[in-house]
């Protein structure tokens, strides 16, 4: 019998953890002489107070959904893919090549092509650590971290030496052709009579992210491969007993994971920047780890956690813009949220379990 009701485990504990993180953040803001209440209001207003704010919040959320799902899928197979950052950067390269060098008649076809390119490049980047893990036993945590650095160096080289248009000063690709530009939420919503900020970057990829959540849920809990993946993740000897090949599970899982991380590039490279720039991912691959942890590796939880981090990103940018609170403070708040929801998760769990046990025996 479980010690706590399910809702307490899924809703109550993350919520209390979040409150603790925010309370501590408030103390830090107080300590530097600013007003935490005002800061919170500013953050909420900045991220949810206008369609412009929403547009940015949802744009970040989309990024984090993809990288969060990437980590979550691998978690179910007991693989810790820390390489989302590098895989997403490679995904960006895939998107850029597809958009720049193929003549697309319409954005929808370009979107399909870019999705394939992003997923294929991301998956390929994950395939090497996966193969090393499956065949050589090199731990995927170590190799994926190293591959993040290799990816950054590779992108640097490609942008500076290969993709940079002649005589351009900054290390970025040429602007993608007009036809590959994705419809933004403004473009999608205005025919329906809903006005949405024209300058916000949220675009059609948001719906792709929602579809990905549903797809991952189906994959993990409804397909035979998902069943085998979870079995392998829970017990490798049992999987071998059943005749499930560890090599196959590791390879396919990491390909899916890398593919999901790569898909993020459709949002930030194709949807927002419309060209490939240096460090386009801005750490979203790492945020994905926190998102997956907080979301308990469940696609629905990942979506909610991604929204929270989207809010923190956008609210944090607003905060830096309008107050004297330095940009670094946002990183502190984000770090506290990660610390409390991820690392310190068990700190609250035990006392809460005791509270629930006490309540239950009294209720008898």
């Amino acid at each position: 019998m479980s010690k706590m009701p399910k809702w307490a485990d899924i809703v109550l504990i993350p919520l209390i953890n979040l409150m603790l993180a925010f309370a501590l953040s408030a103390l830090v803001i107080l300590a530097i002489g600013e007003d935490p209440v005002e800061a919170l209001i500013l953050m909420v207003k900045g991220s949810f107070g206008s369609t412009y704010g929403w547009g940015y919040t949802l744009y970040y959320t989309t990024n984090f959904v993809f990288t969060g799902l990437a980590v979550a899928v691998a978690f179910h197979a007991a693989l810790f893919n820390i390489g989302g950052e590098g895989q997403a950067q490679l995904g960006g390269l895939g998107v850029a090549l597809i958009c720049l060098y193929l003549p697309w008649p319409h954005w929808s076809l370009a979107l399909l092509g870019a999705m394939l390119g992003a997923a294929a490049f991301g998956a390929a980047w994950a395939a090497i650590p996966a193969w090393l893990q499956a065949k050589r036993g090199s731990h995927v945590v170590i190799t994926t971290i190293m591959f993040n650095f290799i990816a950054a160096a590779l992108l640097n080289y490609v942008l500076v030496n290969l993709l940079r248009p002649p005589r351009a000063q900054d290390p970025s690709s040429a602007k993608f052709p007009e036809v590959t530009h994705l419809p933004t939420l403004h473009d999608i919503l205005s025919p329906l009579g809903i006005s949405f900020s024209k300058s916000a970057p949220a675009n059609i990829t948001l719906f792709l992210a929602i579809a990905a959540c549903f797809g991952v849920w189906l994959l993990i809990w409804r397909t035979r491969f998902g069943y085998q993946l979870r079995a392998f993740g829970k017990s490798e000897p049992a999987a071998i007993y059943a005749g499930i090949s560890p090599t196959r599970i590791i390879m396919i899982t990491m390909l899916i994971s890398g593919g999901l991380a790569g898909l993020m590039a459709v949002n930030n490279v194709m949807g927002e920047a419309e060209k490939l720039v240096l460090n386009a991912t801005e750490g979203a691959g790492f945020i994905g780890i926190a998102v997956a942890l907080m979301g308990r590796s469940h696609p629905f939880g990942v979506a909610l956690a991604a929204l929270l981090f989207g809010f923190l990103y956008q609210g944090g940018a607003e905060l830096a813009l309008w107050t004297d609170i330095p940009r670094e403070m946002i990183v502190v708040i984000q770090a506290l949220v990660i610390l409390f929801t991820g690392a310190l998760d068990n700190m609250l769990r035990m006392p809460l379990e005791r509270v629930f046990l006490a309540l239950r025996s009294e209720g008898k």
Partner: protein
Amino acid sequence: MTAPAIELNGISKAFGPVQANKDISIRVMPGTIHGIIGENGAGKSTLMSILCGFYKADAGEIFINGTLTPIPDSQAAIRAGIGMVFQHFKLVQNFSVLENIILGVEEGALLRPSLAKARKELQHLADEYELRVDPDALIQDLSVGHQQRVEILKALYRKAQILILDEPTGVLTPAEADQLFRILERLRAEGKTIILITHKLREIMHITDTVSVMRRGQMTDTVKTKDTNPQQLAEMMVGRKVLLRVDKAPAQPGANVLEVDNLRVTDDDGVDRLKGISLNVRAGEILGIAGVAGNGQSHLMQVLGGITPGTGTVLLNGQELDLTGKSSDGRSRRKRGIAHVPEDRQHEGLIMDFSAWENTVFGYDDDPAYQANALLMDNGAIRAETAAKMERFDVRPPDPQLAAKNFSGGNQQKIVLAREIERNPDLLLVGQPTRGVDIGAIEFIHKRLVELRDAGKAILLVSVELEEILSLSDRIAVMFDGQIMGERLPGETDEKELGLLMAGVREEAA
């Protein structure tokens, strides 16, 4: 009259709605061995955890040597002279024996004086109780039996007068168990009080002075061991009449189902685990493999089950099996009609975090009957089938959604058996079918295996319980050091002869 070493008075403990211990009272006299038996989940371990200070009783009193002694934590238990030897040892594998012994009772900031003192004390204990262990050996290099001695020495070093042993023989070979019993007798002779928790009736009869029976959190009865017998104890444990011997008709063996010739296995470390095994199992018969754990039985099961590669020839119904592992695995073996109940139920046979319904298709999940369409599994159909299987195999509680870890050992094993037997295999490999399984479930499992045999299937049984081998098998092969030492018919042999073969003594030499 002397005061009892331990007296428990009205001990109760509840975990939420579950009453683990209810109004339990016992008295254990000093210098005796007291057995506590009961099925899994009867509350034995909870009671001992209360005595060791891990749990606090909701009600009741503990008297040690006649004085009321509250035991709020494990430090208090040590002060009261209570030492516990757990089923799963709590030793640091890469520490030496000495280092393990002083762990937690080091004196001062420097290790050297403590180690020197421990070395002297250890010598003393070794002389007094014949508990000999090399003080400088690393734990990882010691056999399981010696590791257990270190646990006992740890307790004695902490001046324990009362020793509690939780299922101490579960991990021991018969010879090691005998050595343990000699040590316990020696300790008793020196005036120590010993509480032995077990579900093995033979051990209770063999070594205890008094025995208490627990059932569903309550103490059913406490009796003098010499005034009782295994049959009576089993009835008290289960609460109904139990068949200790398996009731079966003579086998009607048919054609060879499994033929193994010169099977060899070398493990990853280059050690030869199987050194040319040859045996056969016919339809409608149970071949029992007797042997001390670790003599190659596990490797035999794993090669036949497609888990590890080997060399030699294995024929199933006259058709050769691939032993290289290149074109075979657990799944392909199942397709050929070999079902496998693995020895390690918790790590291989089941996924403890998976629900019962997910576990009942494990290894058979590629069956088209479980697919809703090309992409998705038909979870509803699997759940319905699982509910029916649980009904047929009397799995309690019959809830397909419950995680495997929440079932008792016996019910977990029934889930594995239901999965493997209901596939109607030609050959069933069964490893340790009743390890950690309570008596009521043992009876059921044995009955099912005999039924499968009577349906004309071949069964290869591996068990370290000689009693089980003797009562289930139609033929017995004894394994020692990766070889078959000989084959016997159960009616024409006894434990003594098998025991000699298990120890590697051939009849010509004996």
